[in-house]
C-alpha cells in the first residue's frame, strides 16, 4: 500500500519538476533581473551574484536589489497605454474569435464522424506551416498591390489599404488563433449528448431556445478554455503587430522589445514582463477557483 502511494507521488512529481525547471526557475531569473539596475558591462546589469565571496557575496547582491524600476513604470504613460492597448487588442480579437469559432465548432460537431475527422484535420493543418510564414503570407495578401486588392479590382471594387493598420492586426490575430478557439469548443460540443436536446424539445423548447438553455450553458467550459487560450498569448503578441501593424500601434510585446534591445535596459524589460504576467495570472486563478466551486456544486 505504502509503496504504491510512493509511486503515485513520484509520478505527480514529474509535472512539478517540469514547472519548476521551465517556469519557476526562469521566472525567478526574470524577477531578479527586474530588481537590478542597468550597467555598461557584460552582461549589462548590476549587481551580479559573486559566488566566490560566499555568503558575503550573496548579502551584497541582495542589498543591491531594489524596486526602483517598478516605481518608474507608472510614472510614464507609455506603459499604461501599452497595457491598455494590448488588452483591447486581445479582448476584441477574442470576442471576434468566439463569434467565428463557435458556429464553426458547432457545425463540425454536428457532422458525421468521418466528415468530422476530415474537418478536424483541416483545422489543425495550418500548424504544419510555420507561423511566421503564414503571417508573411498575410502581408502578401493585404499589401497595397497584394492579392486582396488585385481581386477587389477584378470585381470593380477597392482598393483598400489594410496593411500596417489596426485592422490588419485583428485579421492576423483572428487568423492565427482561430484553431485555438475552435478546438476546445469542438471538444465540448462534440461530447454533448443529443438526448438532452430531444428532452428539451419534448419539454416545449424551440430549437433556438434549446440552444441557449441547454447547448450553450453546457459548452461554457469550452468557451472559457478557448478564450483564455487565445486571450493570454495575444496580450503579449509581438510578431503579428510588428509585421502587420502600423508604427502607431502600441503593444506590450513591442514595448518589452524596445526596453530590452533599444534601451539595453534589461531590468525595465523584465519589470514590464513580470507585471504583465501578474495581470494575466489573476484572472486565470479566479477562473480556476470558480470552476472548482462549480464542480463541487455539481457533485
Amino acid at each position, binding site marked *: 500500500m505504502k509503496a504504491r502511494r510512493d509511486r503515485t507521488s513520484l509520478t505527480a512529481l514529474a509535472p512539478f519538476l517540469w514547472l519548476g525547471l521551465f517556469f519557476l526557475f526562469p521566472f525567478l531569473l526574470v524577477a531578479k533581473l527586474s530588481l537590478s539596475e542597468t550597467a555598461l*558591462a*557584460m552582461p549589462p546589469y548590476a549587481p551580479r551574484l559573486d559566488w566566490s565571496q560566499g555568503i558575503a557575496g550573496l548579502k551584497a547582491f541582495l542589498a543591491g536589489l531594489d524596486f526602483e524600476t517598478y516605481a518608474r513604470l507608472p510614472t510614464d504613460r507609455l506603459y499604461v497605454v501599452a497595457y491598455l492597448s494590448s488588452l483591447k487588442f486581445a479582448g476584441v480579437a477574442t470576442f471576434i474569435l468566439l463569434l467565428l469559432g463557435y458556429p464553426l465548432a458547432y457545425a463540425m460537431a454536428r457532422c458525421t464522424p468521418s466528415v468530422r475527422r476530415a474537418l478536424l484535420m483541416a483545422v489543425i493543418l495550418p500548424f504544419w506551416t510555420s507561423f511566421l510564414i503564414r503571417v508573411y503570407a498575410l502581408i502578401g495578401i493585404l499589401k497595397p498591390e497584394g492579392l486582396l486588392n488585385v481581386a477587389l479590382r477584378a470585381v470593380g471594387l477597392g482598393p483598400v489599404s489594410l496593411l500596417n493598420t489596426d485592422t490588419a492586426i485583428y485579421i492576423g490575430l483572428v487568423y492565427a488563433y482561430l484553431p485555438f478557439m475552435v478546438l476546445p469548443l469542438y471538444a465540448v460540443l462534440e461530447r454533448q449528448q443529443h438526448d438532452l436536446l430531444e428532452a428539451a424539445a419534448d419539454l416545449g423548447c424551440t430549437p433556438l431556445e434549446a440552444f441557449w438553455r441547454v447547448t450553450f450553458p453546457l459548452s461554457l467550459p469550452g468557451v472559457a478554455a478557448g478564450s483564455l487560450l487565445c486571450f493570454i498569448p495575444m496580450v503579449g503578441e509581438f510578431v503579428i503587430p510588428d509585421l502587420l501593424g502600423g*508604427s502607431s500601434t502600441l503593444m506590450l510585446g513591442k514595448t518589452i522589445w524596445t526596453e530590452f534591445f*533599444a534601451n539595453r535596459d534589461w531590468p525595465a524589460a523584465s519589470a514590464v514582463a513580470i507585471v504583465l504576467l501578474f495581470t494575466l495570472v489573476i484572472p486565470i486563478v479566479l477562473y480556476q477557483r470558480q470552476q472548482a466551486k462549480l464542480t463541487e456544486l455539481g457533485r
Partner: protein
Amino acid sequence: MWTKALGTAAVLAMSVTLAACGQGGGAAKEQTLKIYNWSDYIDPQILADFTKETGIKVQYDTFDSNEILETKVLQGNTGYDIVAPSNHNIPRYIIAGAIAPLDKSKLPNNKNLWPDIMSHMEPFDPGQKYTVPYMWGTIGIGYNVKEVAKRLPGVNIDSWSVVFDPANLAKLKDCGVYYLDASEDMYAVALNYLGKDPNSKNVADYQAATDMMVKARPFIRKFHSSEYVEALANGDICVAVGYSGDILQAKTRAEEAKNGVELAYVIPKEGSQVWFDVFAIPADAPNPTAAYKFLDYMLRPEVIAKASNYTQYANANLPATPMVDASVRGDPNVYPTPDLFKRLFVTTTKDQALLREVTRMWTRVQTGQ
C-alpha cells in the same frame, strides 16, 4: 477541459522546439571560425576561398539589427570569433569590455587602410585599437522617380526637406513613405537638417528634432529598417529614408524584375551620416587565432574589392579601390566625390541617460504616445 487543450498545445510546441534543437551541437575536430555578420552581406565565394587557403572551416551566422547583435554579445559566451557592429555602438562595446583590443602585429595588411576614411573612424575607435572596417556607406533618400515626380512636379529631390517637411510629405502620403526604425540614425540626420550637432548631448536639441518628426508622423506609413528594400523594389512605397547599399540593392531588384519601377538614391545636400560596419573580435572569442587570420585575409585589396562588388558598398581599403567594379567605384552615391565627402559626418555613443531619453522620444515619434 481547457487544461486538456493546453496539453495538446504543449505537445505541439515541444515538437517544434525539438526540431529546432536538431541543428546545434557537434564539436568539430578541425579549426572552426564562427562569424556573426549582417544578413546578405558577403560574397559566399570569399568564405569558400578562405577555407580553401587556410583549412579553417567557417560557420557564418547572420543578424539584421545592431540591437540584436549587441544584446547577444553583451550576454557573453556567444561562441563567435568575429562580430560586425556599426560605428555608434562601438564605444559601448569597448567600455563594457565586450571586444578585445587588436594585436596589429597579427594584421600585416592593416597598412592597406585608407587614411582619409580612417579619420572618420576616430570618433568611435580612436587609433583603430579595436576594430577593422568592413564596409561603409551613407544614409539618404531612396525614391521612386516617376511616382515622386508626379506628386512633387518640378521639385529637385536633393534635400532632407522631402522627408521632413510636412508640406512635401502630405503630397507623398498616398504613395507611401518609410522611415528607418533606428532612432540614433534618424536623430543624427534630423539634427543635422535642423542645423544642430548630430552628436549633440543636449536633450533640447533632440526635443526639437522630435517635434519636427512628430509633425511628419501622420504622413509616415511605417518605421522599419529593412522592409523598405522589398517595398521600394515592388513599387509599394515611393520614398524611404534608408541605407545606401540597401536602396541600391532595391534598385537592382526592380531592374531585374522589369516591373517599371525606377528607383534612385540621393545623399541630400544638407549632408548626411556616414556609417561603418566594422569587424571586431569578442573578448571571449574561442578562436582568436583564426579570427586574426580572417581579418588579415579581408584586408587584402583583391578580397575586399570582391566583397564590395557583391555588397555594392564602399570599403576602406585604398589599394582595393581600382579593383572595385567601375559601376560601384564610379557611383558618387557609393564612393562620394571629395566635395560631397566633406558634408558627411559620423556619430558616436550616447550615455545611458541620454539614450533612454532619445529612445523614449523616438517612441513618441512612432506612436504619438
